[in-house]
C-alpha cells in the first residue's frame, strides 16, 4: 500500500529556477464577465464563493467592532438600544449564514473535492452554479431586510418576541430560508460526487481526510437544513398573518420553536467546524511531512460527529423549562460528541511524532487551531455538564465558548486553508514573514478578546446586554482592546494576500513539497483539472522516500 512508485520519474526541477505560470489554466480560460458569471467550472465557482464569503466576513467584522465599541462603557456609548439590538442580530446572521456555513465547503470544498477525488468536476455542475446564485439571492434578501428596518431579535429569533416585534423580520426570515437552499444544494452535490466520481485507485479508505470531513458536513447540510427552512417559514407566517404555532397568546408553544430551531442549529455548528478539521488534517501532514496518525480513526470520527451531532441539540434548552429527563439524555450525548473531537486532537498531535515540522504561517495557524479547539472544546464539555450550564446559560461564557470554536477553530482553519492552498489556487506565493506576523497578531488578539469574556460569563454578565452593571466594565474594556488587535491582524492578511495575488513569487507545481493528491496538478490547474490520467497507487501524504514525487513538472 505504501510503495511510492510515481507515474513519471523526471528530474526534480532545480530549486530557484525561474518558474512561470502555465500558459492556459482555469483563470485565463475565457476572461469575459459572462464566462465567469455563467461558468460551470467548480474552480471558478469556488473563487466566486471566496469573494462572497470574504465580503460576509468583512461585514460581520465591522458589526462586531461596533458592538465592542458600544460595550466600552456600562452606559450608552455610541449607539442607542434599538440599533445595538439590530447590530448584534446583523453580526450573528451575516457571520453565520454568509460566512461560516458556506465558507470552507463553498470555497475549498468546491475547489479541491473534485481534484482530490481525481474527477473533472462535481456531479451536477449546473446545480453547483445555481447553489451560488441562490446563496447570493438569499444574502441579498437578508441584507435588504436587515437594512430596511432590520430584525432586532438576535440570530436565534426566539418566539414569541420575534413574532410580536414591530421590526419587519419577514424578509430576513425568507433570506435565511433561501440561503438554506444553497446549503442543501452544495451538500447534495458533494455527496453524489464522493459516491460516484472517485477516480480509479481512490477507494473509500484512500480518500484524503478533507474529503471525509466534507462528506460529514454535507450529510448534516442535507438532512438538517430543511428543518430551519420550515421554522423560518412558520415564524414569517406567524409574524405577518398571526397564526398560533409558536405564540402562546394563541395557544402555541415557544419551547417547540426552540426544539425545532436547535435541531438545525446545533448540527449547523458542526457544519462549520468539520471542514476546518478536514483542512487541518491535510495541512498538519503537509507541514510535518508525515502520514496522518490514525487515518481511519479521524475519518470515522468525522462521520461520528456528523451523526451524533443530530442528537445533542437539547443542551441549548437546559434552563428553558425542558424536562430533567431530556436534559440528562442530551447532556450524555453531547459528551459523546466531545469524545470524537478529543480523538481527533490526540491523533493530530500524534501526527507530529517523528515528523519534519517546518514552522510556516499555515503551521502557526494550525497551532492556533489546536489551542483554541482544545480550550473551546473543553469549555463546551463543561457547558454540557447540566448543573454548570444553569449558571452559564445565556451569559458571556457561552459567547466566549462558541467564539473560541467559531473564530478560533473555524477561522483558523479557513486561514490555514487560504495560506496552504493559495499557491495551488492562484499559482503565486504569499510573503512568508508577513504571514507569520499576522498569525501572531491574530492568535494574540483573539486571546485578548475572548478570555476576558469567559471571566465575564463567570461573573454573571448576561449576553446581548446594551448596558451592564459597573462591576463588568474592566473586563469589557480589555475585550474591546483585544478585538481591535484581532481586526488589525485581519487587515494585514487582506493586504498582503491581495498584493501576492498579482506579484507574489511564482509557486510552481508543489511549493510545499506536500504529498496530498491535490498537488499532482499544475498550479493554477487547467480547466479539466489534470494534465495526465489519474491513478493514485500511493495513499495521500506518504513521505517515506526522499525523492519528492510531487515536484515533477511536465507542462511548465
Amino acid at each position, binding site marked *: 500500500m505504501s510503495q511510492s512508485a510515481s507515474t513519471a520519474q523526471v528530474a526534480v526541477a532545480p530549486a530557484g529556477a525561474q518558474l512561470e505560470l502555465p500558459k492556459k489554466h482555469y483563470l485565463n480560460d475565457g476572461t469575459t464577465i459572462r464566462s465567469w458569471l455563467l461558468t460551470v467550472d467548480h474552480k471558478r465557482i469556488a473563487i466566486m464563493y471566496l469573494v462572497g464569503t470574504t465580503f460576509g466576513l468583512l461585514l460581520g467584522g465591522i458589526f462586531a467592532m461596533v458592538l465592542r465599541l458600544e460595550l466600552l462603557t456600562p452606559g450608552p456609548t455610541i449607539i442607542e438600544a434599538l440599533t445595538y439590538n439590530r447590530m448584534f442580530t446583523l453580526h450573528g446572521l451575516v457571520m453565520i449564514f454568509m460566512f461560516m456555513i458556506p465558507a470552507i465547503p463553498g470555497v475549498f470544498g468546491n475547489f479541491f473535492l473534485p481534484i482530490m477525488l481525481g474527477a473533472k468536476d462535481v456531479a451536477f455542475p449546473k446545480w453547483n452554479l445555481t447553489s451560488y446564485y441562490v446563496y447570493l439571492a438569499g444574502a441579498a434578501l437578508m441584507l435588504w431586510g436587515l437594512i430596511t428596518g432590520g430584525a432586532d431579535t438576535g440570530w436565534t429569533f426566539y418566539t414569541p418576541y420575534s413574532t410580536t416585534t414591530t421590526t419587519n423580520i419577514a424578509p430576513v426570515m425568507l433570506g435565511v430560508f433561501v440561503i438554506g437552499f444553497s446549503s442543501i444544494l452544495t451538500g447534495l452535490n458533494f455527496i453524489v460526487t464522493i459516491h460516484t466520481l472517485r477516480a480509479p485507485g481512490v477507494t473509500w479508505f484512500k480518500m484524503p481526510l478533507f474529503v471525509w470531513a466534507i462528506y460529514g458536513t454535507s450529510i448534516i447540510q442535507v438532512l438538517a437544513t430543511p428543518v430551519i427552512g420550515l421554522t423560518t417559514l412558520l415564524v414569517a407566517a406567524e409574524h405577518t398573518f398571526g397564526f398560533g404555532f409558536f405564540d402562546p397568546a394563541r395557544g402555541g408553544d415557544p419551547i417547540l420553536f426552540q426544539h425545532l430551531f436547535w435541531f438545525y442549529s446545533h448540527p449547523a455548528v458542526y457544519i462549520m467546524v468539520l471542514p476546518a478539521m478536514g483542512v487541518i488534517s491535510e495541512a498538519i501532514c503537509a507541514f510535518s511531512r508525515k502520514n496522518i496518525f490514525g487515518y481511519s*480513526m479521524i475519518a470515522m470520527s468525522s462521520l461520528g460527529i456528523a451523526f451524533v451531532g443530530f442528537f445533542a441539540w437539547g443542551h441549548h434548552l437546559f434552563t428553558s423549562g425542558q424536562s430533567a429527563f431530556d436534559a440528562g439524555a442530551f447532556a450524555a450525548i453531547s459528551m459523546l460528541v466531545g469524545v470524537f473531537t478529543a480523538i481527533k486532537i490526540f491523533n493530530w498531535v500524534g501526527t507530529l511524532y517523528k515528523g519534519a515540522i517546518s514552522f510556516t504561517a499555515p503551521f502557526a495557524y494550525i497551532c492556533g487551531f489546536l489551542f483554541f479547539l482544545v480550550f473551546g472544546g473543553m469549555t463546551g464539555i463543561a457547558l454540557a455538564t447540566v448543573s454548570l450550564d444553569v449558571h452559564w446559560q445565556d451569559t458571556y461564557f457561552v459567547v466566549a465558548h462558541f467564539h473560541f470554536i467559531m473564530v478560533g477553530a473555524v477561522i483558523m482553519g479557513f486561514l490555514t486553508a487560504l495560506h496552504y492552498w493559495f499557491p495551488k489556487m492562484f499559482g503565486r506565493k504569499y510573503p512568508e514573514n508577513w504571514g507569520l506576523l499576522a498569525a501572531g497578531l491574530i492568535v494574540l488578539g483573539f486571546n485578548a478578546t475572548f478570555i476576558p469574556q469567559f471571566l465575564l460569563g463567570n461573573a454573571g454578565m448576561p449576553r446581548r446586554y446594551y448596558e451592564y452593571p459597573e462591576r463588568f466594565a474592566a473586563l469589557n474594556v480589555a475585550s474591546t482592546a483585544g478585538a481591535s488587535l484581532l481586526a488589525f491582524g485581519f487587515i494585514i492578511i487582506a493586504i498582503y494576500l491581495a498584493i501576492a495575488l498579482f506579484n507574489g513569487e511564482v509557486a510552481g507545481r508543489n511549493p510545499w513539497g506536500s504529498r496530498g493528491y491535490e498537488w499532482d496538478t499544475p498550479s493554477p490547474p487547467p480547466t479539466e483539472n489534470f494534465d495526465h490520467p489519474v491513478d493514485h497507487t500511493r495513499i495521500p501524504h506518504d513521505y517515506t522516500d526522499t525523492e519528492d514525487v510531487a515536484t515533477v513538472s511536465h507542462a511548465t
Partner: protein
Amino acid sequence: MNELLRQMLFLPEQASTFALDVDHLHYFVIIVTTFASAAVGLVAIAFFWKYRQRRPNQATPMVNPTAGFEVAVITIPLAIFLLWFFIGFRDFVKLSSPPPDAMDVYVMGKQWMWKFAYPEGPSSVGVLHVPANRPVRLLITSRDVIHSVFIPAFRVKMDAQPGRYTETWFTATVPGRYQLLCTEYCGAQHSKMWGEVVVMAPEAFDEWIKDQQRGMVTRQDVLADEDQVNLQGDLREMGKRVAIDQGCLRCHSVNDAVYGSEQHIGPTWVDLYQRPTKLDNGTEIIADEAYLTESMMDPNAKIVAGYTAVMPSYQGKLSGPETAALVEYIKSLRSDRIRQASVKGPLYEPVR
C-alpha cells in the same frame, strides 16, 4: 482554596447551597482541564522542537497508532466526561425537584420589569424578599415574551415562559442584597430589566411578611396585579394589535418613564392621557380623547412642542372601532410610578 479559585475565576459570592455544589464541580473541571491541556500542549511543543525539519524533502517513517493507543484515546476522555456528566446531572435533578415544604413565590416577567407575588397576598415590583436558610420555590411566568430569572450569586437561572409556569428553587444562605438579571433577550430594555433579591434573617422575614399583610388588610381588596382585570380587555388588546400593525410603535414608545427619557420620534404614549401638553404654538391643551383622535386623523393640527411634523395621516386607514381601540390602549398605558402607590411593599431603586 475555594476563595482563591473563586477570586481567580471572577465568580460572584456563593450565597446559596446550590452555588457551593456548582462551584466545587466547576473547580474540579477547571483543574482537570488545565492539567490535561497543559500536558497535550507541552508534548506538542516538544515535538515541534525535536522533530523540526532538518533537510529539505526530508523523509519520515510511516507511523500508525496501535490499537491500544486508540482505545485509550477513546476511553479516558469518555470516562472523565461521563463522570462530570453524572455529578452535574445529579445536582441538576436536585435543582429541578424543589422540597415540598418550600415557600412559593410567583415571579411575573413583564416587558422590562419583574413582579413578585407571595401566596399570602403581598406583592412587589423589582424586589424579592426571601428568608435565609429556608427553601424558596419560584413559580415563574411572563406576560408577553420570554424572560429569564438569573441570580448570579445563587447560580440559579430559569426562563420565564409566557402562558405557562416554570419552576426553580434555592436556599439562600448569606443574608444581603443580590442582583437579579434578565438573561433571555426580550427587547429594547432587556439590558435594564434588573431586579433585586433581599435575603433577610428568617425572623426578620416573618416580621416583614406580617406587616405587609397588615398593610394589605387596611386597603380594600388589593389585586396582585391590577391590569389583570381589564374591563375593556378585548378593546385594549385590539388597540395594541392595531398599534403594532399600523407601525405606531415605530415612533411612539409605550413603556414607562424610564424609557421615555430619551427623545423619540413621536411623543411617548405613557401617561399621555389627561396630561397637560404644550404645543409648538405656545398654547397648552389637555390630551383627551378628542386630541388623540384628531392627532391620528390630522396630525399637523396640534403639534407638541419639540417634535417635528413627520406623522402621516391615518384618515381612511383606521376604521372607527380601531381608532377607539387605539385610544383605549393609550389610556391603559399608565407608567408604574402612578400605579406604584397601590402596590404593597417598599420600592427600592434598582441597584445600578
